[in-house]
């Protein structure tokens, strides 16, 4: 495939929508600026030819191309999911461009377009020197390609592989081939199949036996160009007794059109391994009238494949027009542990349908679910979860707590937990409450001199405490700020 077939977009639409205007319009969405850099994209549309082109641009081996094509063929046979609690316009998959990359392909971080680095700067991404200060290794995915990975050397010394998925496919094909799709198969669901066909980049982490990853790993995702989707694929493998903590942050600029984000994340924990995966999701949520925003349809699943392994998901979801996401854990190994801590905040016309699945297969497996939903404006916020105890899961334990907080009369807060128990030694417990911020609490704060908005943030922060505690420190601070910003104008 040659460069001629790649459309260059330098790009009028970007100019129209310059950062200044966006900032003026978008006080409430601090990440809503557009970066003016030259990018190259595939033309909109999806067929086998596009997939072959994509695979060729990325210089992928033939097995990978075939893997994508198999996923695509399967996707074509699948019905579009109908959304239980979500109202969305039909998505035109032929109108989306499945590849958009900064034109000047970076070789190393020093070669990265300064405008891009500035973008990360605005986002507060601890990249480059900032990364050194923060002690975080960052893999930043801008639109579709990974632009730079810091701390490669230090990680390599420890034996940890942390690179973009594209690079992993080229450099570590055996590992990728062994694990890719082993947790989320190509045909798992509609969006996972689409992702398997067209994923453009993502992160790959491999922590070998007995190694504790010497630092927290982090990826920032950002959708910049118009009419593109972002389909990243992340794969994290921890061998026996290996350990890693991984952070993921997401932002996208303001646009009037809805953009699609359909990611797949696969985690594999072998015997005694421990994976902690934290997300702060702040994709553009659309404006106060529900115009624009990201459709965030994500499949995240962890496989506790070995005994005594542990996978913990923590997520703070404040962005996206529509979120559809159930980070799950398959508790296959005996004594394995799955956790899910979630804060999902919706405002204006946002819709979130999120939760988790805990599938208990091994003996003495344990899972814990803490979900905090906050609904404001005219938004809709649902927890949907499944706890399944299979026949052989002796003494499996689950505890689930789902609380919803309502701010305003026009929003909805819903809880749909499914419990399926087939083992008589299992104990499964679920509790849920729904309430509004109480007038008493607000008045108490105000009578001590704290203004109404501050009082609301304080109470919301307290409501989310159990989840924030699970986040690494700097993320917890960011998460708290995000909630404050997202709730602006929700009261009064």
């Amino acid at each position, binding site marked *: 495939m040659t460069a001629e077939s790649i459309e260059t977009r330098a790009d009028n639409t970007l100019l129209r929508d310059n950062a200044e205007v966006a900032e003026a319009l978008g006080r409430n969405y601090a990440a809503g600026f557009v970066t003016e850099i030259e990018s190259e994209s595939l033309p909109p549309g999806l067929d086998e030819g596009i997939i072959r082109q994509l695979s060729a641009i990325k210089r992928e081996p033939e097995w990978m191309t075939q893997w994508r094509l198999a996923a695509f063929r399967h996707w074509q046979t699948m019905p579009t999911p109908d959304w239980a609690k979500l109202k969305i316009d039909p998505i035109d998959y032929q109108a989306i461009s499945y590849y958009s990359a900064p034109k000047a392909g970076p070789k190393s971080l020093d070669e990265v377009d300064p405008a891009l680095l500035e973008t990360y700067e605005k986002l507060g991404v601890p990249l480059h020197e900032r990364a050194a200060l923060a002690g975080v290794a960052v893999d930043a995915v801008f639109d579709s390609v990974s632009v730079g990975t810091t701390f490669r050397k230090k990680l390599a010394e420890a034996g940890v592989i942390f690179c973009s998925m594209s690079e992993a496919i080229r450099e570590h094909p055996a590992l990728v081939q062994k694990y890719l799709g082993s947790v989320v198969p190509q045909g798992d669901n509609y969006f996972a199949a689409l992702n398997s066909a067209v994923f453009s980049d993502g992160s790959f982490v491999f922590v070998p036996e007995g190694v504790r990853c010497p630092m927290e790993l982090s990826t920032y995702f950002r959708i910049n160009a118009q009419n593109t989707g972002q389909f990243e694929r992340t794969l994290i493998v921890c061998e026996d007794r290996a350990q890693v903590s991984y952070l993921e942050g997401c932002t996208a600029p303001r646009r009037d059109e809805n953009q699609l984000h359909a990611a797949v994340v696969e985690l594999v924990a072998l015997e005694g391994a421990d994976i902690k995966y934290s997300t702060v999701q702040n994709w553009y949520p659309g404006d106060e009238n529900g115009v624009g925003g990201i459709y965030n349809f994500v499949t995240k699943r962890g496989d506790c494949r070995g005994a005594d392994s542990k996978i913990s998901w923590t997520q703070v979801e404040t962005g996206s027009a529509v979120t559809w996401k159930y980070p799950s854990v398959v508790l296959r190994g005996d004594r394995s542990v799955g956790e899910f801590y979630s804060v999902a905040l919706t405002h204006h016309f946002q819709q979130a349908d999120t939760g988790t699945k805990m599938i208990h297969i091994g003996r003495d497996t344990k899972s814990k679910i803490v979900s905090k939903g906050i609904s404001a404006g005219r938004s809709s916020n649902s927890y949907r979860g499944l706890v399944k105890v299979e026949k052989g899961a002796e003494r499996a334990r689950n505890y689930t707590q789902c609380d919803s907080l309502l701010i305003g009369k026009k929003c909805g807060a819903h809880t749909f937990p499914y419990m399926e128990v087939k083992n008589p030694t299992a104990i499964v417990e679920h509790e849920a409450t729904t309430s509004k911020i*109480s*007038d*008493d*609490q607000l*008045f*108490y*704060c*105000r*009578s*001590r*001199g*704290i*203004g*109404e908005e*501050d009082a609301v943030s*304080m*109470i919301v*922060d*307290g*409501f*989310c*405490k*159990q989840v924030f505690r699970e986040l690494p420190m700097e993320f917890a601070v960011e998460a708290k700020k995000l909630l404050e910003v997202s709730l602006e104008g929700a009261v009064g």
Partner: protein
Amino acid sequence: MLKIENLHARVEGKDILKGLSLEVKPGEVHAIMGPNGAGKSTLGNVLSGREGYEVTEGSVLFEGRNLLELAPEERAAAGVFLAFQYPVEIPGVNNTYFLRAAYNAQRKARGEGELDSMQFLKLVREKLKIMQLSPDLLNRAVNEGFSGGEKKRNEIFQMALLEPKLAILDETDSGLDIDALKQVAEGVNALRSPERSFIVVTHYQRLLDYIVPDHVHVLAGGRIVESGDRSLALKLEEHGYAWVAEHGEPAGASA
């Protein structure tokens, strides 16, 4: 300092206060006593600006300003403090964090500088000693899991910290045993000064054995029907509120 004139207030369409007048000068302690349902708690809530309490007539001036126009947080910044009868629990919100937010918000509103967390912690530790509260209270969530006595002492502790000009204690004695009552009273007495005034709302006389008031008022049927010095409280104890009802009726009937 505080001047209430002919105050009428209504809750959920029901008239509760029906022409209450009261003047509190700097440094004075006023006790307001009365039977259940007399409107005692309503007074505290109206003064601190709780929603749902509709003032239909009358005025409240605090240091010459119209108190009723101010939002609850503005009243707090102006120096009005209500110690709640039932302090609400706020899960997950750290007590120290809450106190500092309140303290700094008030300072900021008055154009004073804010304290950083170290300075604040030092201040808090000093004040804690006064109330004989255990420092681990600071690490817990606001009022969460506090015993009844701890909640009340925590209210007084907040008062000590925020140093209001006018403190309204709403049935601070209810639910306290005698030892806790003494501790609360000691806390209050320590804060008495020529500049600071108190309105002590209570159903029982016994609190007034420990917090000695300058004036005692009897609230019945939404207005003050009897005022006097401390001996009035003792008379009430002896005769009960039935005596007031009889005694006070003619005044009410002639209104």
